[in-house]
């Protein structure tokens, strides 16, 4: 409980800037990963069913069958080498292209969109193709860096000639500048960023190799778990642990190295914690993800859950280390690699005599990661609830500030706020005592809805005797920071927050008749009348 209280109570002033920055960064990661959760699940489902080791293997969809020997013609293929050294046309299938291209591009797109709207999303995607094809390592880390960075660069470039373009040429300049910047960045990412990520990946492998050779097994989890959630699991699993494990099997008949990365326990614990203590979409999709992860062995489906709340990596590391330590104590291991890492494949690869250790390693690692994840989720739950399903925390931060020194009340208060928000379509409560000087409406185009909302509120303020409150409207992409309150349609509030982080944000479902207007008017009136 003290952890929860600490998270809600504002810390001392000097720690606050950092705290807010960390929370913003967390919100940013969530915004980048969360909208793409369905794609992760889709890929997880296809993979767990159709790969060679899946439930219903299918060489065409799974991408392992010889197309020359199949009657299904016309699908995309690539040359592959058979065991006897000859080459044949192998189906590309859905599994490889989705994880190589689709998922990183979607992440880059969402990240770019947060930074700079639709334009940022497009440039981010273009640049990320460079980092994907510039390496053979899966480019999740690359996409998470290159996507937002590319969008940010586009934003800076646009600033150079903002307002300097002859009327009528804006579209032309916009299209070509984004095309040129995108093309340049994709080449830059290809040669500049992709090799770095490749190096990081092989460097991590070297460390794991060293740890394995020095009997420091449980410490490996510190490297393996973070690498996993960045999709470097196969690079480390198949590239380092499996060859080392195979070596040990020839000597001892089993190896625990096969279980370091393939143990489904840590991911299961995290997903279980989300199922019980998560909020919104993350909570409701966690149970399905458990089936794909634990029984299907496609660990990747839990990665986004960690990526959007990076502190959960602690749960994965401690869970993983517990599993490894258990196997060390019991001297247990697997006969061969468990691929995919489902509980079924793990048990199938367990030699007689190792069952107790292996099963305990899964159970204990799941328990530890569940408990740690539960504490972490519990601590931030009130904030996440207040921020709504988007997981954006700025609203919650404002709330925290408003509740200074009333930590004991704040949890209950936040829950009440959430009920209110759900019922009325407002995300923030009206508790501020700060005078309100300016309100800005944001909509997509900046010529219709926001203008109408602004007229209505202006009218209401005038009738309430507050003609001095400035009410403006803007396209969300042009929104500037600084207004006291920013009002936007629910689906645009996240973008509005990123454009204007210091404003208090209020969502409306209906610009014409929102109860929010009366709240704002009442608040402005109260604030104007109060001495502070």
């Amino acid at each position, binding site marked *: 409980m003290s952890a929860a209280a600490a998270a809600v109570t504002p810390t001392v002033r000097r720690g606050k800037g950092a705290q807010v920055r960390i929370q913003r960064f967390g919100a940013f990661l969530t915004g980048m990963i969360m909208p793409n959760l369905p794609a992760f699940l889709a890929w997880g489902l296809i993979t767990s069913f159709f790969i060679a080791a899946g439930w219903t293997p299918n060489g065409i969809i799974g991408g392992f069958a010889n197309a020359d020997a199949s009657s299904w013609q016309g699908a995309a293929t690539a040359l592959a080498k058979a065991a006897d050294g000859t080459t044949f046309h192998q189906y590309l299938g859905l599994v490889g292209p989705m994880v190589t291209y689709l998922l990183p591009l979607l992440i880059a797109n969402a990240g770019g969109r947060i930074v700079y709207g639709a334009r940022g999303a497009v440039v981010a995607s273009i640049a990320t193709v460079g980092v994907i094809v510039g390496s053979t390592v899966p480019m999740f880390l690359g996409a998470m860096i290159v996507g937002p960075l590319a969008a940010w660069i586009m934003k800076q470039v646009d600033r150079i000639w903002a307002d300097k373009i002859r009327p*009528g040429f*804006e*579209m032309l300049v*916009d299209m070509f500048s984004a095309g040129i910047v995108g093309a340049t960045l994709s080449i830059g990412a290809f040669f500049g960023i992709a090799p770095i990520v490749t190096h990081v990946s092989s460097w991590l492998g070297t460390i794991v190799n060293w740890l394995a050779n020095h009997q420091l097994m449980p410490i490996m989890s510190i490297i393996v778990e973070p690498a996993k959630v960045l999709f470097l699991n196969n690079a480390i699993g198949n590239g380092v642990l499996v060859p080392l494990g195979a070596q040990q099997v020839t000597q001892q008949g089993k190896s625990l190295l096969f279980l370091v990365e393939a143990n489904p326990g840590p991911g299961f614990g995290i997903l279980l914690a989300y199922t019980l203590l998560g909020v919104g979409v993350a909570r409701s999709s966690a149970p399905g993800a458990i089936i794909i992860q634990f029984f299907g062995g496609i660990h990747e489906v839990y990665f986004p859950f960690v990526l959007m709340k990076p502190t959960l990596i602690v749960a994965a590391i401690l869970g993983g280390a517990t599993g490894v330590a258990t196997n060390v104590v019991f001297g247990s291991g697997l006969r061969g690699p468990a691929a995919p890492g489902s509980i079924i494949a793990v048990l199938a690869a367990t030699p007689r005599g190792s069952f107790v250790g292996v099963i305990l390693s899964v159970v204990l690692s799941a328990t530890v990661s569940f408990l740690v994840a539960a504490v972490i989720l519990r601590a931030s739950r009130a904030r996440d609830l207040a921020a709504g399903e988007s997981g954006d925390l700025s609203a919650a931060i404002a709330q925290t500030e408003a509740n200074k020194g009333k930590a004991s009340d704040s949890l209950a208060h936040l829950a009440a706020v959430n009920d209110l928000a759900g019922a009325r379509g407002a995300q923030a409560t009206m508790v501020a005592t700060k005078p309100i000087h300016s309100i800005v409406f944001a*909509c*997509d*185009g*900046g*010529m*219709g*809805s926001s*203008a*109408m*909302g*602004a*007229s*209505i509120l*202006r*009218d209401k303020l*005038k009738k309430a005797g507050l003609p001095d409150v400035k009410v403006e409207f803007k*396209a969300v*992409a*042009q929104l500037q920071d600084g207004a006291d309150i920013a009002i936007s*349609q629910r*689906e*645009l509030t996240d973008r509005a927050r990123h454009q204007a982080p210091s404003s208090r944000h209020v969502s409306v*479902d*209906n*610009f*014409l*008749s929102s109860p929010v207007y009366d709240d704002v008017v009442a608040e402005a009136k109260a604030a104007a009348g109060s001495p502070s």
Partner: protein
Amino acid sequence: MTEVLTRDLVVAPGSARTKDEAIREAGALLVDCGAVTPAYVDAMAEREHLVSTYMGSYLAIPHGTDESKGHIRRSALCLIRYDAPIEWGIGQPVRVVVGIAGVGEEHLSILSKVALVFSNPDEVQRVLDAAGPGELYDLIQQVNAA
């Protein structure tokens, strides 16, 4: 300066039956009066897929995106009332469609009149009950905009 909302840009009843038809119908009025190029109508339809312009109170206000402002020659509004509600989204009946082509600020005073009318349930009822285009036009114009 030309009026932004002229009498011939108020139509009742409109002929569209679906959301897409209604956007096209409003767009066609704006094209016919020379306010926008046909490309703007495509932008209106496209934007509607991104973010709905359903406003509540039986009103929708289709318009282009920020990027499509290049296709606007001058600001204009059109207003179409339908006898049968058009399903704009699930549970979003629309009787009045206001097509907007806005550059600069000329369209804002009339738009704010529309907003004030539609934020008042009694006024909305009067708009729905108005006898024809002429009466509709007068209803909107007589509002004392803020």
